[in-house]
């Protein structure tokens, strides 16, 4: 049975990616897994007092966003599971692919300002991921 992994955040661009992943799951009759990666490296260059559990707070945010993604899938008739990880997006994607026996990876193309990657970089990343994990990776 196909197992589809969709890396997601929130925002309009992620909703498009989520919808495409849900559609693929419906077409292929596969399981759908949403992944959110908690990355706090944006704080690395700030030297204001960081005395709170930032990872913890962003993890809660990530859980909320994953619940939103699950609801979207449910509304379209797909039961999705969610995974929350901490670290770098590239590394965690590869790890989850191996651990969860993923058969298809869905990554969203840059849409406006909201993507982390430029398209060429994203295509290159998708190709590298596919080569490394032997799992088909599609940009939607």
């Amino acid at each position, binding site marked *: 049975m196909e197992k589809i992994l969709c890396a997601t955040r*929130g925002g309009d661009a992620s909703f498009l990616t989520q919808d495409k992943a849900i559609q693929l799951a419906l077409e292929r009759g596969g399981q759908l897994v949403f992944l959110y990666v908690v990355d706090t490296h944006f704080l690395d260059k700030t030297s*204001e007092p960081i005395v709170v559990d930032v990872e913890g707070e*962003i993890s809660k945010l990530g859980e909320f966003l994953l619940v939103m993604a699950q609801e979207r899938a449910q509304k379209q008739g797909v039961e999705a599971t969610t995974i929350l990880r901490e670290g770098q997006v590239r590394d965690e994607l590869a790890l989850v692919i191996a651990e969860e026996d993923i058969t298809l990876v869905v990554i969203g193309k840059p849409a406006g300002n909201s993507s982390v990657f430029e398209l060429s970089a994203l295509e290159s990343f998708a190709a590298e991921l596919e080569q490394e994990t032997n799992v088909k990776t599609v940009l939607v």
Partner: protein
Amino acid sequence: MRIRPTRRAIFFLILCFVLLIGLGLNDAAAGNTSQQFINQITILGSVINSQGMPIENAEMRVVIDKTPQQFIVNNEKSDSVCTDASGIFIADLNLDEEISGLTNLTIRVAKSGYKTRQIRVDSEQFTCEADTCYIRIGRLTLQRVLNQAFFLAAGIFIVVFGLISFNVLHETIATFLGIVTMFGVTYFIGGSNSDYWIIGFHKAIQYIDFNVVFLLLGMMIFMAIMSQTGVFQWLAFQTFKIGRGSTFMVALILILITGLTSSVLNDTTVMLLMTPISIQIALALNIRPEAIVIPEILASNIGGAATLIGTPPNTIIGSYVGIGFTEMLVNMLPISILSMVVLVFMTRWLYKDHYNQENQVTSEALVAQLEKSSKITNRPLLVKSLLLFTVTLILFFIEDYFHIPPAVVALIGATALLLWVQPNIREMLREVDWTTLVFFMTLFMMVGGIQEVGVIQWIAEIVQQVAGGNLLLATVLIIWVSAAASAIVANIPFTAAIIPVTVFLTTQIPGADNNILYWALALGAGLGGNATYIGSAPNIVAVGILDRAGYRLKFADFSRIGVPITVGTLLISTIWILVRYIWVGF
């Protein structure tokens, strides 16, 4: 009666004799010991710069008839005497000469980075007692010259400023790089060529404001403990429950909570805690998160500007000039309140489309998730920390009465909390953000470097010339230039560099002794950071968290909201300051 010629002559002789004796007595009384031998001359004086600040280690030499003289310093002979930390010199010159032989006595005062001064002293200026004479020079002002150390120190500071402002390097690494470079130039080149001497290590240490460092340390401990309770997230969720019928009401309450908490706790930390939950609330209300988070960011900067402990620039200003918690609150709180009113009105107008849309039914799953994120996780800890925080705030209010430095108040509160809560101390010490404390220490050392070489003085003189001694012009300049700078560059190093300039201007401009220029700097540095998302640290962290939720803001997206609100708050605050301190005065 006619006097006979012989009697006339005798009378004349007696008269001359009396006159001669009189002159001789007079000369003795005047101390004109032109025939006197003196063994020692003591020369006293002080050396200052054009700002009136004492110059330490200025060298004083004496030349008599083109012959350099030697002093007795600590029972040893020396060619020169240096001024102490107060700029004062007292020099003993051993002589064995007639005072009348002391012609062409020249005193020469020199220090690297300053124009050498020479003063000719005549023997009439001596005050003598027995065989010792004293020469009192008074205050000697040396004028700056812009030497290599000046340009190097300024260049290093600007580079570090740029590295921090444009996020090229971590702030602490950047300031480390800056101070180490200054030391490198000082010791490797300045050791043999005084024109390259920027600042020595021991002198640099003296510039660290430990009141700021320990105040931050104490408040960090409070924040670290309170943040574990979940109180901020719980407050936000209660706001959602109460104001669910009106999106604007929810936003308004969250803005006020953020502003209020930022006034007494570090504003960046408040944003780190409020932003994730605010994003969730916005999504649950089906509005774009920026409509809540950006006004919260602006509120945190405005609220933080109200008190000594709300924002690092205020802490730096207060500590440098000796302004206490209450005095700063009394002067800055009205400005913050006015600015918050402007923020609320402008937010309502700028985001009206978001706030006016009808609320869709929020899914129960999302509400449940929201509630799960917002629980009070440790009620006993919350009670203890709130109680002690209240006590600490009361101590801040009465610190002036007991002459307690704010840092001591913060340490008292933090220590009491640690004793009562007894957390795992290793974990607690890990929670304290040591990189931030080291950043402040190295920053102060760097500012000391540019102060030693005269960069601050140079800036102060330019500003003084531009302001022309006009208090109104100086006030408006400081507010708006500080605001513009804070919008673009890091406001903490900017404030640390500009506060000595402001101190100088306060001593020079008539009417500035009501501290108006300090309020102007606090206002500009605090509110100016609202204009762009790089303007201050709460902005950067909140925008970063928004990005993690998939809502990436471009520079222009933030500025479209930030700039009008900043201009609005600055305008109203400028008018308030001018009315309160210059036009009406109350």
